């Protein structure tokens, strides 16, 4: 028997496979396909202090082995999350992390503080990098001082696991990771979407209502892997890798590059059962390679 357990600071994951925010709803959407209780964790939709309608339609464009989205943080707001959704999903025996977003430092802080009170939410993922929200997200994630400010401010009010999610749209992601580490993050997750664009040439119009949007899916994997490797070499806190992971091999690559755990996003759309397959595939790999614990993979790259 191989040991798939992973520790991310105070978080204990039964296996390293989590689902990525914004791609897995609140978990419920996948109940027909996956036993949610068998996942390492789920990160629910980006949640903000106030409800948000998100961006206009169209919000999606397919690209070569990837997709652009411009959802723009549509969500019911933290209060309705707490009153309506939390009671439904707190039954899951897995780590439910709430992805927290905001336009100002105060919004992040208030939202995090409210979630701090929820017993069955062992952590948050601070989304300081969403490219689809004009006012805040993007600016926060790509400039180091503001990233540090948000992280430090939320740290003041949030005392469970604080994962900070990094934007890939930067020159030096390791530097930003070091910044959030010093500001009190318990872990970093990356990558959020790459800023991209699609054009309908027949109509001579951008496909997305927001002109640009966030690129995800297999296409971004090489960039994500590189960034995870760079960040894992820079920081001491655990790194959660994501970006295009579509199978066990991909997940293992991220762990070899230094990730302690992974998140799977877009691939769920293509195969709603992908998470279970990845868990099984990691187990197979460990057995085949005579490893006893998934922890042995972390950073085991012979570079």
């Amino acid at each position: 028997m191989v040991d798939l357990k992973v520790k991310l600071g105070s978080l204990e994951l039964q296996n390293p496979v989590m689902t990525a925010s914004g791609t897995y709803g609140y978990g419920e959407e996948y109940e027909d396909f996956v036993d949610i209780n068998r996942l390492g964790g789920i990160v629910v939709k980006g949640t903000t202090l106030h409800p948000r309608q998100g961006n206009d339609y169209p919000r999606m464009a397919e690209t070569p082995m990837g997709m652009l989205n411009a959802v723009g943080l549509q969500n019911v707001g933290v209060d309705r999350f707490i009153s309506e959704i939390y009671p439904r999903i707190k039954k899951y025996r897995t780590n439910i992390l709430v992805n927290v977003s905001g336009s100002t430092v105060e919004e992040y802080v208030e939202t995090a503080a409210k979630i701090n009170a929820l017993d069955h939410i062992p952590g948050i993922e601070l989304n300081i990098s969403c490219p689809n929200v004009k006012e805040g997200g993007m600016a926060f994630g790509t400039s180091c001082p503001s990233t540090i400010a948000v992280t430090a401010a939320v740290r003041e009010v949030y005392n469970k696991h604080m994962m900070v999610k990094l934007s890939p749209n930067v020159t030096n992601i390791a530097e930003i990771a070091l910044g959030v580490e010093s500001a009190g993050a318990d872990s970093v997750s990356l990558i959020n979407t790459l800023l991209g664009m699609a054009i309908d040439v027949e109509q001579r119009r951008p496909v997305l209502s927001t002109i640009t949007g966030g690129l995800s899916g297999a296409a971004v994997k090489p960039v994500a892997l590189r960034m995870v490797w760079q960040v894992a070499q820079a920081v001491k806190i655990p790194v959660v890798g994501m970006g295009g992971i579509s199978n066990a091999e991909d997940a293992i690559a991220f762990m070899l590059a230094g990730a302690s755990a992974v998140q799977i996003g877009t691939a769920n759309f293509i195969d709603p059962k992908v998470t279970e397959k990845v868990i099984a595939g990691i187990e197979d790999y460990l057995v085949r390679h005579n490893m006893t614990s998934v922890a042995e993979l972390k950073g085991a790259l012979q570079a």
Partner: protein
Amino acid sequence: MKYLHDFTLVNSERQTDDFVVLTLQGGAEPLPELQPGQFAEVRVDAPGAYLRRPLSIHDVDYDKQQIKLLVQEVGTGTRALTALALGSTINMLYPLGKGYSLPDSKRVLLVGGGCGVAPLLFLGRYLKKNGITPRFLIGTRTAAGLVRLDAYRELGEVMVTTEDGSAGTKGYVIHHPVMKTETPDFDWIYTCGPEAMMRILAKYANKHGLSCQVSLENHMACGIGACLCCITPTKDGHKCTCTDGPVFDSKYLQW
């Protein structure tokens, strides 16, 4: 309950230059109950088709465990599907979305344009089973674009408009005589097709105090309400076309 099932392509019949009917054979398990207007997210194994493709349930044979899809070739994914060899495996995530609901009147008109005719066959069959005789109004560019008229005729009257007048009434569906009477002889409109067409029908329905159920074809990524990509503005804000729709009461939409 939604399923992720492998089907086998047992028949692929070209109807027109760009329409093909695929017959998919289910496996060991019986088919779940399907509602007309519901769709499947179909996995396409071709370069350039990364995400699944949403396709309406065109017809169902529960006994044979067969589902039919009516596919219009518009791009990489649909072309790859219609090029598949018999015996190929096709994976479907289904049944998805909310379909058409039964009318509170027996006087219904089913209006289809383009690939929007696809769900109307299954809907017609469903209505008929519920004691309602469907009447179809189908609009295309030319006579050559008319698809499977015989199958629709088995269920009820079929009226046709073509833009070039090569069959039926010349013009768009709204120009058909059945739409021109002062008091329409139908109380419910079921429609699927180009949004422009459906908007006109919705307006028409409003004006005449009819019910109008429209089926939207928004771009989708997940098909199950997880990604929020497929929204449409409604009286209650943004709603997912894939779970709250694809069929909506036109009055509920911000049209």
